[in-house]
């Protein structure tokens, strides 16, 4: 369906030296990255590293203070999320994707309902919308018995998949997924990861934001590290290992320190008094 057409030379999305200031707060300073079609770019970084600001800039919520964004080689300026959508950049937020009380079909087509009929009798084409929703859900391996059932009855992973399927169906070229797996169990997370791989196979560019290296590493082709509003660099999968990524993500030193501290507690466990002292710190 949504195949990347031509222009192999330019990356699908090219973020060039983006900065974003909120008053005196510098949220982003000189962030650059490129995402190609058929590639999953994992955006990694601790809380406060600027991941959210970056994706909000890419999805048209914020305007960059400096720098530029190019989509397929053309410079773009987004005034609203709608502009970004029209340019083919679809963002799936972790919790703002779906309305639980509305049906799968109504959620799927929210804001872009197919219509039929003329003049005052133009109406929401429920029959074809139900059919498409059911088909698209089937394609991603979710067998809905009734597309009229409320989204609230779906599991968290299924909801993420509906949101992603919706973005893909409406012609997204770049998918931005904001921590789609962080609230999910192992099984559900793997359902979402499988679907990310499927989207890549359809030649979409995916920007995948996560805290979890075990989710990022299997599907990622490249990893961009953010720290305190700056990029620490982009690494191809072949150039790096899971352990290296993990170390960069969490700050290797802090993990080593934590290890040492925990070992200390384990030793202190012998004396009850020491345990009583240690437990508040351990929690």
């Amino acid at each position, binding site marked *: 369906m949504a195949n990347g057409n031509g222009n192999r030379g330019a990356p699908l999305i090219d973020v060039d030296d983006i900065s974003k200031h909120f008053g005196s707060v510098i949220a982003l300073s000189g962030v650059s990255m490129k995402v190609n079609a058929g590639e999953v770019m994992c955006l990694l970084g601790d809380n406060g590293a600027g991941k959210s600001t970056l994706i909000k800039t890419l999805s048209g919520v914020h305007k960059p203070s400096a720098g530029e964004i190019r989509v397929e080689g053309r410079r773009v300026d987004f005034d609203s999320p709608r502009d970004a959508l029209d340019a083919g950049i679809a963002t799936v937020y972790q919790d703002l994707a779906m*309305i639980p*009380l*509305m049906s799968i079909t109504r959620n799927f087509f*929210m*804001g872009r309902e197919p*219509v039929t009929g003329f003049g005052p009798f133009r109406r929401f084409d*429920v029959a074809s919308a139900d059919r498409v929703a059911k088909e698209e859900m089937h394609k991603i391996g979710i067998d809905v018995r009734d597309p009229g059932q409320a989204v609230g*009855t779906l599991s968290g992973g299924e909801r993420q998949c509906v949101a992603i399927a919706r973005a893909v169906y409406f012609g997204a070229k770049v998918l931005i997924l904001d921590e789609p797996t962080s609230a999910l169990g192992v099984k559900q997370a793997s359902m979402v990861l499988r679907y990310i791989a499927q989207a890549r196979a359809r030649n979409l560019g995916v920007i995948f934001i996560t805290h979890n290296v075990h989710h990022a590493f299997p599907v990622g082709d490249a990893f961009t590290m953010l720290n305190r509003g700056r990029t620490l660099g982009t690494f191809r999968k072949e150039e790096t290992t899971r352990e290296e990524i993990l170390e960069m993500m969490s700050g290797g030193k802090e993990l080593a320190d934590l290890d040492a501290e925990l070992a200390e507690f384990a030793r202190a466990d012998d004396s009850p008094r020491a345990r009583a002292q240690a437990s508040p710190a351990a929690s």
Partner: protein
Amino acid sequence: MATQAARADERIAQQPWFRKAMGRPELGAVAGAILVFLFFAIAAGGTGMFSALGIVNFLEVSAQLGIIAVAACMLMIAGEFDLSIGSMIGAAGVIIAIPAVTWGWPLWLCILLAFAVACLVGYVNGLIVIRTGLPSFIVTLAGLFILRGLTIGFTRLITGRTQVSGLSPAIEADWLAPLFAGEVGYPLFKAMAGAGLIIARPDGEPLVSGIPMSIVWWLVLTAVCAWILLRTRVGNWIFASGGDPVAARNVGVPVTRVKISLFMFTACAATLYACVQVVDQGSADVLRGSLKEFEAIIAAVIGGTLLTGGYGSVIGASFGALIFGTVQMGIFYTGVNTDWFKVFLGVMLLIAVIFNNYIRRKATSSR
């Protein structure tokens, strides 16, 4: 594939018909209406409540409330309240009456003016709610007092009184007025009286000569709104705006436009209510419509609409209004002290809210 089909079948079997019916928001109101009818069929069977005249009577009460309940329900589904409905009824009444009586305007022009003012009031209500981000409950509560105060103040200033009467000549001469207070279906009722199906007066004319326009308005409004809600893009936007305005806005739903339009719609429905009353009674009173905003919200809630928005049914709201009208008139016919009506109302509301809450939990719990 075979296993998948088997799984699908198994899951359908887990959803018996009554669970499906439970998923409909209007179920409670329909069941409630049936119960109320059964009750009064037994309790008030011999009193003439279910004669043609009695039926038209309680349907007319239901219809007037139904007109505003349907609009309030649409707005509630979009996640907002309008507590200024009752004051708008009073305001629209005097806006129609004063120019017609005091300045001799033709009635149709007064009615158009009332609708224009209603659109403005609704627009301002909506704009303030959207711009300030304050709960519409508070904003329109302020609107309730401001509008009522303006109505009383200006009416006294212009006419020196709080009632405007003497509209009958203007109503009789007007071409637009029959649209609000006429009757339809006279030939049918005449034929029914002739066949002895309904009571005829001694001169052969039927005692009930047609269906009042308020009932027609109510049914048409319910049908059109149900269609908009369930079968148009705008309907989907209304559900989305109430369900989660941020998510809706993110996918391009014009939430602001939807909400402001619905505030204008509730104000216009209040004006329609006022038109029906003024044209029917030939007078207007500044205190008309007091507490109607709460009755409209109660009818919508009994109809299964959630106070939090995003879920509900105008058909349910209409049934809520029907329950309301039936009980109000039923208590009158059975001769029970009408004080008890308020008790019934409160209990009914409480049951409806608890029931709705249960339904919402069912609908949003993941399996």
